[in-house]
Every structure is written in structure tokens, then in C-alpha cells.
């Protein structure tokens, strides 16, 4: 488990991170959400040791992270970074070796990853000749080539088309399934909603919410229900103790004791649907930040 405890960071007088704590559990995809400038990238850079923290600690399996430990991390920086003029296969193999993997293993891992990411045909092309989406896939390969113990990916899905998202997702899921903790940031909430097991939401440098996706939904679920009847649902407004949030012909969203409203609806006629409203990540996000 990767443990982040109370890390803070200032840039000048501006406090960018304030006592940030969360865990990234092995075998799980943890989504790291936050608006632009909320501190996601700063947090990730501190975890990677690219930036120093002004307080707090980051540990891996209960031990402080040392420079010796760090090469076992796989990192994909937000601003993509690879050598534009180097060939794809050569570059990934080189990065693998720089992480301490021997030549033969680095080569084998590179070829396997390029195959998984559907890039084998471009292996001997210079990086700069690839489309941005394909460069992004190469970047994923660069983060994985040394079979890292931990994966830290800053916006891994931005710039990918839906098919590429699936390809990359497939590769990342495999890693997570093999017991690797994966922390990835994103501002595409729909993707995170589908992918992640755990969610960490950061807002203005503080952790606003943190837990498994289901747990968060439960915590943030309200007594909100949606009722769809055959005819106009305007009458719900008159039921005592009911707060109507939305009303649109036969469809109404309200907060109240659900059984009372359901009974009343059945008395009046046909009920087409009656469901508790589960908050989307988007809604939770808006609520907590």
C-alpha cells in the first residue's frame, strides 16, 4: 500500500497542498479527482520525489520512500515527456534499462507492451512521427516497461479516442489485477466513474472526499427519489413533508419518505418507475469541492 500522510507544500506564500492524506491500495485503481490547480499534479510529483514536500510523508509498504525505492515506480507525467527524435522501441527499452532492468528483459517487456498497446507497427518510427494519441500510448509503455511496483499516472486518458481508452484501460487493469496499486488523475469524471475502485477528491489543496466509489455514493446518497407516473405528477407537491426538486410532466424528483409518496402514486394510477437517485461522481464532485 502507498500511504500519503499529511503532506503540505507552498509555492512562495501560496499554500498549494494542505495536510493531504490518502492511501492507494494494492490491486485497485484509485482515481484522483480535482479541478485545475487543485493540487493533483503537485501531489503526484511529491510522491515521485520530483518535488520536495514541506512536511508530511509518503511511504510504501510502511517504509519511507528512498531514492533506491523510487525506480520501482512507474510514472506518467502530466506534460508528456519522451525524446521526440528517438525511435519508439529504442526509447522504451532504454527507459527500462535506466530503471535497472537488464537488456534482454527490457527488450522483451518493450515488445510485449507495444503489442498490448497495438503499436508494434510503429516500433521503429521516431516518436515525433506518431499521432498524439499514439504518442500517449508510448508514454504508457514508458511508465510500465520496468514492471513497476506502483503506478502513478497523471491524466493518462486525456487525448485518447474511445477505442484507445479501452486499449490503455485493458493494460492498466491487468497491472492492477496483478496487485499493483494504480493512482491516476483525471478530470474526465465519466471515465473515472467507470474505471476506478477508489476515489480521492482534492479541492484547493485539501482532501475533500476519499474512499471506495460505492462507499462515497452511499455517503453522499440523499433521500432523493425519482418517480415516473402515467399522467402529470404535479400532485406530489401537495403531499405533506415532500420537497420537490424537479418536476417535468409525469416525472418528478423529490426528497421525502419514499413509501408515503409511492403509496399515494399507486392510489392514483399507474407507476412506471420509482428509483432512488444514486449520485453520480459528477454530483459528488460538485458537492464536495
Amino acid at each position: 500500500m502507498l500511504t500519503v500522510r499529511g503532506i503540505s507544500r507552498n509555492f512562495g506564500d501560496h499554500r498549494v497542498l494542505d495536510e493531504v492524506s490518502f492511501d492507494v491500495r494494492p490491486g485497485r485503481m484509485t482515481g484522483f479527482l480535482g479541478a485545475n490547480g487543485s493540487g493533483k499534479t503537485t501531489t503526484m510529483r511529491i510522491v515521485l520525489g520530483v518535488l520536495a514536500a514541506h512536511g508530511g510523508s509518503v511511504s510504501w509498504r510502511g517504509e519511507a520512500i528512498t531514492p533506491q525505492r523510487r525506480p520501482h515506480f512507474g510514472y506518467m507525467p502530466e506534460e508528456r515527456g519522451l525524446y521526440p527524435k528517438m525511435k519508439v522501441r529504442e526509447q522504451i527499452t532504454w527507459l527500462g534499462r535506466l530503471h535497472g532492468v537488464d537488456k534482454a528483459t527490457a527488450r522483451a517487456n518493450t515488445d510485449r507492451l507495444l503489442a498490448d498497446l497495438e503499436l508494434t507497427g510503429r516500433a521503429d518510427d521516431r516518436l515525433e512521427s506518431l499521432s498524439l494519441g499514439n504518442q500517449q500510448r508510448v508514454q504508457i509503455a514508458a511508465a510500465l516497461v520496468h514492471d513497476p511496483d506502483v503506478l502513478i499516472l497523471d491524466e493518462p486518458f486525456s487525448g485518447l479516442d474511445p477505442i484507445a481508452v479501452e486499449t490503455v484501460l485493458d493494460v492498466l487493469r491487468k497491472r492492477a489485477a496483478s496487485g499493483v496499486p494504480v493512482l491516476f488523475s483525471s478530470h474526465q469524471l465519466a471515465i473515472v466513474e467507470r474505471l476506478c475502485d477508489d476515489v480521492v477528491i482534492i479541492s484547493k489543496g485539501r482532501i475533500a472526499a476519499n474512499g471506495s466509489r460505492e462507499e462515497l455514493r452511499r455517503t453522499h446518497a440523499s433521500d432523493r427519489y425519482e418517480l415516473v407516473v402515467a399522467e402529470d405528477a404535479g400532485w406530489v407537491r401537495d403531499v405533506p413533508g415532500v420537497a420537490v426538486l424537479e418536476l417535468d410532466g409525469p416525472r418528478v424528483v423529490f426528497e421525502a419518505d419514499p413509501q408515503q409518496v409511492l403509496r399515494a402514486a399507486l392510489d392514483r394510477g399507474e407507476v412506471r418507475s420509482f428509483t432512488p437517485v444514486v449520485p453520480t461522481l459528477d454530483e459528488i464532485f460538485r458537492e464536495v469541492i
Partner: protein
Amino acid sequence: MDRVSSTRASFAQATWLVAEREMRTFVSTKGFWIGFLATVAGLFALTVLPTVFGGDDPRVAAVGSAVQAVQGKQLDVREVADVAAAAELVRADEVEAAIVPDGGGIKVLALNDPPADVIRQLVASPPVELLDASAVNSDQRFVTVLVFGLVFLMFGMGGAAIAQSTVTEKQTRIVEILVSTVPVRALLAGKILGHVLLTLGQVVVLALAAPIALRVAGLSELLAVVVPALGWFVPFLMLGFVLISSMWAVAGALVSRQEDLGSTMGLVMLAVMGPYFGVQFFFDNPAVLGVMSFVPFTAGVAMPVRMFAQQAQPWEALVSLGILAVTVVVILLAASRLYTGSLLQTGGRVKLSKAWAPAE
């Protein structure tokens, strides 16, 4: 998926991987080969051309009894029937001068200037004895200064590739991956090592080509003097190159984009051009050259030139080399700190004081 437990690359391994990549990248650029081949071609041209263009004997016309006077001299003689025909050839610029009988002796006809090279052949020179004979004349010394200076300049400027490679890493942000993987010092050491090895390779080729060029030019006697000087030039050049490389690396680390590189390269260019021009201007002034041969930045050219001109003793060269080596160590340590302090700073140009400050 099989899990491979990777071990961290050692400092030496990381340095070597970085150096290897630098060399491979640099050698695969066209600019490298164009520059290198141009230097080799220039070296041959410099030694061979004088003999091709300047080696011909002056052409003269000779009339009657004057023919005997020019025989056995280094002159290209054309016999003509009378003085009028000879004068005609001179006017037509067919010959440089005409040698005609004049009373009991001879007379030289020329167009508008007395032809010094012809006259020199015709008069008896008094014997000359040099009290402080030097194996090299001042022309040869000039050529050596020019060649040493140019080679130093070329490789010194070539070090700009280090600055460029550093900025590329900053600009593409691969530097974040690199820094989270290997120590910053290994990055710096690898870059310098890679370019030093590349330069050494080129110097070796040039050092092997120089004697061949001299032999082709028929200057074999100069060879005996040049070879020991080359022996001094190579270590001075290599240490000087390390010194300048570390400065190039810092120049690259201080900026974030290629476009801004110009703002930090000035000082380094000064450190490269300064010695070049200094030695070119003062090579005939033993006092100034003597001082420059101990100043680390100019020693790289000045001391080998003094050794070549036999103005300095070997111990002087060793002392100068020692001073240079110590300076290299000091500059390397400073460069390493500046490099570390500025590598991850993005945005505008990083101030030296900020790069020097301990990490926050």
C-alpha cells in the same frame, strides 16, 4: 504477467546509459557528420594548398647570353630570340620578368614592380647563422596556432549540443521521468562523458589525419615538431572540453525552451571564443602567451602552442595541466549543484542565485 523484481541501475550504469544515448543521438544527426568531415577536409586543405598554389617557380624569359645566368636557378625559363620579343612577353604577362644581356652582365625587365622572387634567385645571398635557432619558423607557428585554435573552437562550440540536449529534456518534460529514476548527477555525468568520448574520438581521427596531411604536403620535417605538440594538445583539449561541457550543461538547465537558450549561452561562448581570439592576437607576444598558458580557459590553446614553439618546458605544461584539472573539478562541483537546482524549475529563465540555493 511475470513480475520482474528490478534492481536500481548503479550510478555508473545510469551514467553510462545516459552517455550511450547522448552519443547515439548525436552521431545520428547530419550536423555532426557535416561538421566533422568539414574539419578533416579543412585540415588537409590547410596543409596541402600552399604547396599546390605557391610551389611553382617564377616564369621568366631569357635572351642570348643571359640564358647561362639563369641555368640551375629555381626559375621556369623560356628562351626567346631578342630583347624585343622578351619585352613583349613581359607586357603580355606571359612571364613575370625577362632576363636580358646588359653590357657584360645581365638586366631584368619587369612590368611595374621589381620581381623580388626572381631577383632573389639571381643574387648571391650571404651565409646566415641563427644564434637562437628554432625548428619552427613564424609561418609554421601561425598555422599551428590557427589549427589548434580552430579545433578548440570547433569542439568548444560543439559542446552546445549538451545545452541543447538538456533543454530538450526540460522542454519535453522527460526530465521528470529521468529525475524520478536516476540521480541528477548521473544525468550530468552521463551527458559530459558522452560528449567527451565523442570529442575524443574526433580528436583521435584528426590527430591521425594530421601527419598524413603533412606527409601529403611534403612537410615531413614539420612532422617531428608537430607530433610532440599534438601529444600536449590532446590532454589540454580534453580537460578544456570537460570544463566547457559542464558550463554548457548549466546553460541548458537554466532555461526551459530552446528559444531561450541564447540568453544563457553568451557566457559560455565567451569562454570558448575568448581563448581562441586571445591566442590568435597574442601568439607573437611571449609574455602574454606565457600568462595565458596558465589561465585555465586559455591554457588549452596557449600552452600547446608554446610547447610547439619550444618556448616552454615540459614542467610548465604539467603545472598548467594541473591547474586546469583542479579548475575542472571545482567547476564540475559547482555545475552539478546549479544543474540540480535548475533542472526541474520550469517557466522563464532560472536565476543563478536561485539555482544555487539549497532545494526547498
